[in-house]
Structure formats: C-alpha cells, structure tokens
C-alpha cells in the first residue's frame, strides 16, 4: 500500500527524525502529537521508523569482534604479549 500525503502530513513527516530524537521545540512536538492522534498513516510511519532504528541497534549489539580477528590484530600490532589479557564477555 502506498500513501499520498496531505500537506499537513508532509510537514509532520519531514520532521519525524528530529521528533524521534527529541530535537523539536515543545510547541511543535505538541502539534505533531495532536496530528498523530488523528492520523493512522502517520502513526504507522512513526512506529515503523522507531522499529527500524531499534532493529539496527539490536543487530549492532549482537555484532562482536571474533576472537581470531582480535588475535590477528594483536599480532599485526606486535602486541602478542598482551593478547591473553582478559577479554570482554560475548566475544566469539
């Protein structure tokens, strides 16, 4: 389903990223929230935008430095004597 935006929606949608980050002034935030309360399409965009960011954050948190990559890095930097130091958990 694609969506043709009304001029009111356009104004809101162009500021959604800043809205999510809390970068907008309070008055504009209130305008956006009032619009969202009555516009299902914009609500969906906000929710899916937040979810998109959340999924990338989750994927990032699950990305670890493989142990063999760490070992090769220490070797390349001639830090082999320090490679056996305690490693952070979750590195595999």
């Amino acid at each position, binding site marked *: 389903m694609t969506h043709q935006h009304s001029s009111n929606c356009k104004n809101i949608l162009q500021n959604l990223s800043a809205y999510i980050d809390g970068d907008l002034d309070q008055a504009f935030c209130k305008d956006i929230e009032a619009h969202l309360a009555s516009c299902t399409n914009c609500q969906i*965009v906000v929710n899916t935008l937040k979810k998109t960011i959340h999924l990338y954050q989750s994927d990032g*948190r699950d990305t670890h430095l493989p142990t063999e990559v760490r070992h090769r*890095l220490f070797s390349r*930097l001639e830090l082999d004597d320090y490679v056996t130091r305690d490693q952070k958990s979750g*590195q595999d």
Partner: protein
Amino acid sequence: MTIENSEKPVDLKALKRKDKAAFAKLVDQNSEHIYRLGLKMLGNPQDAEDVLQETFIKVFNNIDGFEGRSKLSTWLYRIAVNEALMLLRKRKAGITQIDEGLELENGDILPRQIIDWCCLPEKELMSSESRQYIQEAVQTLSDANRAAFLLRDVEGLSTRETAAVLDISESAVKVRLMRARLQLREELTHFFANRIVRESL
C-alpha cells in the same frame, strides 16, 4: 554502546610514550566498535578486518600528533571512517553513486509505503533471514548517509560527536540521518510487508 562509556580512559601520556600495555588496553576498549563500524560500512568481514588493522596502525603511528582537542574515541572513529571510505572509493572506482529515489525535486523526502509491520513477532523480525536483509539494506544507503546513520543510531554517538567524526555541521548530520532512516524504513517495510502477506496465506 559508545566507546569509553564504562571503562577507565587510557592514559594518553602512556600512549605517547608508546607504552605497549596502554596501547593494548586502547585496542581492547575500542576494537569491537571499530570492527562493527567497518563491517556495517563495508558489508564484509575481510574489509572490516582491514579497516580495523589499518585504523590502529595509524593510531599507533600518529599518536604523537593527537593534541586532545577532540575525544580520543572521536579521533579513532574518524580514522576508521576515512579508512572505510577509502576502501569504498577503490571498490567503486568509476562508478557514480546516486542516492536512492525517496527524494522529491525540492529535496524533501517522504515515506511511501504505509504498512504496519511492527505487529510481527520479534522472532520473525530478528530471524536469520530478516537479519541478513537488515544488514544488506544498510548497504543500499549512500556512503555519506550510511556513515551518519551507523555513528548515530548504531554506535550511539551524539549529533555533535558524529559531526566531529565526519567533519560536517550538526545540521548536515541531521539531514543525512533523516534520509538514511527513512530509506531504511522503506526497505524494511518492503521486506516485512511480504512476510505479513506470507503469514496471511
């Protein structure tokens, strides 16, 4: 998730003395961040490892020139981003990159697909197939937008820190971030809408 959040900063004087223990500590505190940034910027582990190694070699060789006007982590990220961009330029030599077309003639960007896929269960959203798509989708961004998105939303840097790493204004960071987020939302909407259709059959 940002560098140096929870750990004691490495002694800069010891680094400048080329103290190996201090340098090993710096590497251990930062290597996962740099590796992740390289991996998400370039999309493959071998290139990410090259970025990781080259970044720390440059840090080690140039630490004398680091004046401490920015945070050490900002400097590290800046070197890593530049290494990644250099590899991307080599890879794309002769190819002109065009931002994907969410943009209108006046520069505005608007969402096109309105499908609520937030209702999908978490195991579907983070299945191995979904994760592969999520990782591939970030590669569809322009290099500039991808760097801003990864630093802000994945590495968790502030707008100011991201601007310092990329050597651009804070307002430019916000524009790039908005474009990246909206484009990724479109990509994921396209992908997950198909999952909703598949589930309903």
